[in-house]
């Protein structure tokens, strides 16, 4: 189902800012590739520790020029710097803490999500391959205390991404807690998707028009707050 009206939402950076408001001081957080990575720009200086599944705690900002060290990258293969208290470890320790439930929060991008908290992200069938890149995504989903998605509400080609039934291969089942898009903030509840916040100038009906499952409208529905 494609939608013809293109709604005007908030930019990617602002989705990331909104997600950053959910993070508590002292949290250990892993950020996936895409919009999630932008969250790191909004938490600099805060007492939040970023885990990088390559084997690093307290991952610092991106490195440039003379600060680039080929032995120091984040899980997206970008050079980064270290901070006081940075710790390196091997991949087993990394996934011990991930699967063992030590991540306060994991933020991932997604291709599709449904109203049961299943989401698809690791393989796009349009690529025409039976294999894809899983990386650490499935591990991060099973281990996260809170699993958030940060994504565009509608795909570039106009196809809806918040759907009744996933048509892409799922990454995890029933683990997504909240969805942050350019148009809305939606909580996954046992009764279905709860619309809690909408982008400035939009109505609940606008968001519903680009959302396949029926939304439950929060009695405290408000504009996205930054």
């Amino acid at each position, binding site marked *: 189902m494609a939608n013809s009206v293109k709604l005007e939402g908030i930019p990617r950076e602002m989705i990331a800012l909104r997600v950053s408001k959910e993070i508590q001081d002292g949290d250990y957080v892993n950020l996936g*590739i895409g919009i999630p990575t932008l969250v790191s720009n909004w938490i600099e200086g805060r007492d939040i520790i970023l885990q*990088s*599944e*390559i*084997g*690093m705690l307290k991952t610092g900002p991106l490195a440039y020029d003379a600060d*680039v*060290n*080929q*032995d*120091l*990258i*984040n*899980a997206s*293969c*970008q*050079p980064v710097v*270290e901070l006081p208290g940075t710790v*390196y*470890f*091997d*991949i*087993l320790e*990394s*996934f011990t803490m*991930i*699967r063992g439930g030590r991540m306060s929060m994991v933020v991932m991008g997604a291709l599709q999500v449904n109203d049961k908290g*299943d989401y698809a992200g*690791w393989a*796009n069938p*349009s*690529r*025409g*391959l*039976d*294999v*894809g*890149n*899983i*990386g*650490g*995504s*499935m*591990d991060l989903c*099973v281990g996260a205390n809170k699993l958030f998605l940060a994504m565009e509400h509608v795909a570039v080609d106009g196809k809806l991404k918040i759907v009744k039934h996933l048509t892409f*291969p*799922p*990454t*995890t*089942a*029933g683990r997504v807690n909240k969805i942050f898009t350019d148009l809305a903030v939606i909580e996954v509840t046992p009764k279905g998707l709860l619309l809690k916040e909408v982008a400035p100038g939009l109505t609940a009906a606008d968001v519903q028009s680009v959302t396949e499952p029926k939304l439950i409208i929060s009695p405290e529905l408000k504009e996205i707050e930054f």
Partner: protein
Amino acid sequence: MDKVYQKIEDAIADVNDGATVAVAGFFACGVPRLLLKALINKGTKNLTLACGCGPMLGAADELKQLVKNKQLKKVIDSYGLYRSATKGREDSFEQAVRDGEIELEVYPMGTLAEKYRAAAAGVPAVYLPTGVGSIIEHSTITNISGKSIPKETRVFNGRTYILEYALKPDFAFIHAHTGDREGNLKYSKTARNFNPVMAAAAKVTIAEVENLVELGIIDSDSVHTPGIYIKRIVPVPRIDFRVSID
């Protein structure tokens, strides 16, 4: 026991056709590129490369050459393809995967780490939560139809887990920052990644080291890989590279 080989070709002399070789590294970081180059020069065929997270994307030149030479039978990885579909379609490895000339078997990264760890620790199989609700709950993922193996699941305390098996490579290629002649190794920063677990998992582990030091120089409390896992060690120069993948 002095485990040092001065010539890299001597250190890999018994890596024969059909071998399964674990290749450490995470994208561009901590990849044993000089051992891979030696493998290209040797011309070994029918290889299975057992990876962790895209070391052959980091060593793209070596991968291209291995594909060109038709040295590869199979690659096991969690992230073996370019992220960009456009870049991927131009990539000779991805083309060989599409054509079914090379098998690509894919696992979640943490599951792959556990499979190597199981082999290292004398564990035949382990139950893992990762991938329940995805297709890997039901079978392995591969591009070659008919090669997919059914998975077994079991419920513990109301939650479903997948039985995953040990993966024991014939050889592991390791890249370390510092090593001594008995094979004690230290890695630098995030270049550690899959190196320790692969070093412990393989039947024969061969390490290239940027700095070969005297015994006792590496602090006894700070060794990352004890020498017991290392069969051969080769001093190599540090090679610089661009740290990004697409």
